[in-house]
């Protein structure tokens, strides 16, 4: 039944994609795709709940095999859960123009490529799906942006970084296949060189695709320039599929990894979480800010995986399973609220024409449904109870607290530092989304376009409201997923299914109680307030006329933090003034917080690359014959190596 539903869902997506080509069937094609995605989601979560394997099992041979188990079921569930509202959103967001129709088809292709990775049961299909899910969004961006040179440069960076880093994925999967360890049929010796090579390659390759720091440079560039539904799929699902690959390799197939590797993963997670949120704070474009938060949340997920690896290496199997479940639960939660926020940003951009934070304001009043749903997403990503982000961050926090308890002094310190990083990340995320809500949703509109903004058509609103309700439901009852997620650990661990999160020795998280208390408190406050309203009074602005330019700006709001972190962030600012006749006429301020990793790590590599290219260019004669001679040389050298027994 599950297999049938999954097959029907994927078939509907494929047929819907083909239908989207024709202008008249464009909407019907997208609706069919959305229905298919819904079927995929139900089938995926059903597979997770039943923990039953469908189809083929994993094999190290290079023969195409397809199947689904609990873990791939979870990620198929996430894929459908996000793709369905994103496609409903597309029905009115995309126009049936040639470009819109092409994006409609490519969206179907993108969803199918993601499903291919999740259903692959052999190395070749897995790698084919992996490459496809990288290439399809690049084509979507190129098609939707037309002749935009900046977009082409970004796509080049995206492809270059993900392919260079992605080589690690190939190395890891091929080494596993060579060892016959795909599917865990052969146990790789703990602490062996092979195990280390596989783990490091996977962290490099899959970490690049997931957007962990310092391999993240493509993410804040590529995600914001895609059409909103595709941004939602990229941030909500694609980077989670990379996490799926990481979990498969590090947790399922590569044996019990040594403690030092778990600590390395913790360090990478902490860097991503903190770095992502800090740089998000200084972004002025809403979609770029959301993309930086994707890096932060991937960091939180990686922290959970790191904690699981350390705890597993120390023999604390129960808590290792809880830490893994925390990471996987945050995958679900982040997918939901990030898709909501990206689609919300798309709705704002459609209504206003800009996503520059300093030029928005007052959208909650003008777009109450979209603005309200966006507010729920902002609260969820900020980790506020009783929403879903809080539940999984709390669970990750609990897992990190238990790292020092079971480990030695070294991993104890690492766990404590990771814990501090997560706590700081959570606090900074609240700070950042207070800024976003304050400047985007509240206050007065800063431009005439914002003042004239209207609610989008029903399909767009419906998609946003569905995702907002999902944030509430997952925050209210995270325990429904927690039990099956704990069961995904390859070592046997089980917990009962409840609404809240029950963890032994922690006091647990009574999400239902918290939700009831908060709702009760809100109702009580509303009753106490009655019909009274705050009396309006004129704003004192040192005698100046109050105008939108005097409102808080993004830079002004974060100035205190920028000053505190000045020694790390090295912000740049420039103030120029124009005076006439001794009277100041104009002051122009521009500020920028440069990305240190790009400046200190990537720029030197880039310069080195250009220098090497100058020398390599001598080989590039422009003659086809010469290139054939190079190939002949290479073939002869390789054959000679085989003949002499150096390879093969």
């Amino acid at each position, binding site marked *: 039944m599950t297999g049938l539903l999954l097959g029907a869902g994927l078939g509907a997506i494929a047929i819907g994609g083909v239908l989207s080509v024709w202008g008249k069937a464009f909407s019907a094609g997208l609706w069919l795709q959305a229905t298919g995605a819904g079927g995929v989601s139900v089938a995926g979560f059903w597979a997770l709940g039943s923990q039953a394997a469908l189809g083929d099992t994993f094999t190290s041979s290079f023969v195409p095999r397809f199947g689904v188990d609990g873990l791939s079921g979870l990620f198929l569930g996430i894929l459908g859960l996000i793709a369905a509202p994103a496609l409903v959103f597309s029905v009115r967001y995309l126009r049936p123009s040639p470009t819109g129709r092409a994006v409609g088809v490519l969206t179907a292709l993108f969803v199918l490529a993601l499903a291919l990775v999740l259903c692959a049961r052999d190395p070749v299909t897995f790698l084919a799906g992996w490459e496809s899910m990288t290439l399809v969004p690049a084509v979507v961006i190129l098609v939707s942006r037309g002749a935009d040179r900046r977009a082409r440069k970004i796509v080049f960076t995206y492809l270059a970084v993900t392919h260079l880093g992605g080589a690690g994925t190939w190395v890891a999967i091929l080494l596993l296949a060579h060892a016959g360890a795909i599917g865990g049929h052969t146990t790789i010796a703990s602490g062996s060189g092979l195990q280390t090579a596989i783990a490091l390659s996977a962290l490099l390759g899959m970490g690049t695709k997931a957007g962990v720091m310092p391999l993240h440079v493509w993410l804040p560039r590529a995600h914001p320039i895609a059409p909103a539904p595709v941004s939602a799929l990229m941030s909500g699902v694609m980077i989670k599929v990379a996490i799926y690959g990481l979990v498969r390799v590090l947790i399922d197939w590569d044996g019990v990894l040594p403690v030092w590797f778990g600590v390395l993963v913790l360090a990478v997670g902490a860097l991503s979480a903190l770095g992502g949120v800090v740089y998000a704070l200084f972004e002025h474009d809403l979609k770029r800010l959301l993309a930086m938060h994707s890096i932060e949340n991937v960091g939180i997920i990686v922290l959970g995986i790191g904690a699981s690896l350390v705890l597993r290496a120390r023999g604390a199997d129960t808590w290792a399973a809880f830490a893994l479940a925390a990471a996987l639960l945050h995958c679900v939660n982040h997918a939901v609220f990030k898709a909501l926020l990206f689609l919300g940003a798309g709705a704002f951009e459609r209504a206003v024409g800009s996503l520059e934070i300093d030029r928005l304001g007052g959208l909650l009043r003008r777009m109450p449904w979209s603005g309200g749903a966006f507010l729920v997403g902002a609260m969820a990503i900020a980790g506020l109870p009783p929403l879903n982000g809080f539940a999984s961050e709390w669970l990750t926090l609990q897992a990190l607290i238990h790292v020092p308890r079971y480990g030695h002094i070294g991993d104890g310190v690492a766990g404590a530092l990771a814990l501090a990083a997560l706590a700081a990340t959570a606090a900074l995320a609240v700070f950042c989304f207070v800024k976003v809500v304050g400047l985007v949703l509240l206050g007065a509109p800063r431009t005439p376009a914002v003042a004239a903004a209207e609610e989008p058509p029903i399909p767009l609103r419906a998609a946003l409201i569905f995702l907002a309700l999902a944030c509430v439901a997952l925050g209210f009852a995270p325990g429904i997923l927690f039990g099956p997620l704990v069961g995904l650990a390859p070592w046997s661990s089980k917990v009962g299914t409840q609404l809240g999160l029950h963890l032994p020795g922690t006091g647990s998280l009574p999400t239902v109680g918290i939700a009831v208390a908060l709702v009760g408190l809100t109702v009580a406050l509303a009753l106490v307030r009655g019909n009274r309203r705050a009396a309006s009074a004129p704003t004192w602005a040192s005698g100046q006329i109050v105008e939108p330019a005097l409102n808080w700006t993004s830079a002004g709001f974060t100035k205190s933090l920028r000053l505190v972190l000045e020694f790390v962030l090295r912000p740049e600012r420039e103030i120029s003034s124009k005076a006439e006749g001794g009277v100041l006429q104009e002051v122009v301020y521009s500020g920028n917080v440069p990305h240190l990793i790009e400046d200190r790590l990537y720029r030197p590599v880039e310069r080195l690359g250009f220098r090497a290219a100058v020398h390599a260019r001598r080989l*590039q*004669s*422009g*003659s*086809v*014959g010469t290139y*054939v*001679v190079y*190939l*002949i040389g290479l073939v*002869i050298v390789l*054959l*000679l190596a*085989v*003949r002499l027994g150096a390879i093969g």
Partner: protein
Amino acid sequence: MSGGLLWILVAIGLAVVVIRRRSMAVALVTAQALVLVAFALYDAKDGEDVVAAGALAVRAVALATLFLLLVSRTREQRPVHARVPPPVRAGAAVAFALTLTWLVSTLGLDSRDAERAVLALVAFGIVTAATRRATLFQVLGIVLAENGLALAALELPGGASLTIELGVALDLMLIALVAGVFHERIFAEFGAGDSAALRTLRD
């Protein structure tokens, strides 16, 4: 395949390396493919082998048509001067073929003679692509090498492989179509199908 037939295939290949006229080279490469088709049909054991031979025949005829069409659409005042004289080309081709024969101990085919013929055809094809400036000859070099691969498919233990024949046919048709478009564009731009003209486009 008999030794005599293998020698004929190799001799046709060597003739393509040294020949001057494009239309003659197209005729030789097509004749070589048709010899392979004839042998494939003669050696066919079941329906799949016949389909494989059919795929080989279709691609031979389709490529010949395409190339002759290109020749007629891009008449040149005089043939494009090859960068390497014919005797040197022939010498290089034979030397490369012998080197490959020495380097590759086995291909797993039915006979060692067939393996040598395959390696010779691949070597002749590569040398043609490397030493000729005329764009059409460079494509014909690739077709020559692919004829070698088709021979290898026919000489596999168990007979011709439909998968290989279909794969090679698809591969070649795609290459030939793209190369044909490039050839026409180069001819339209520079007045001759000379790949050396592309060097002027280098930054």
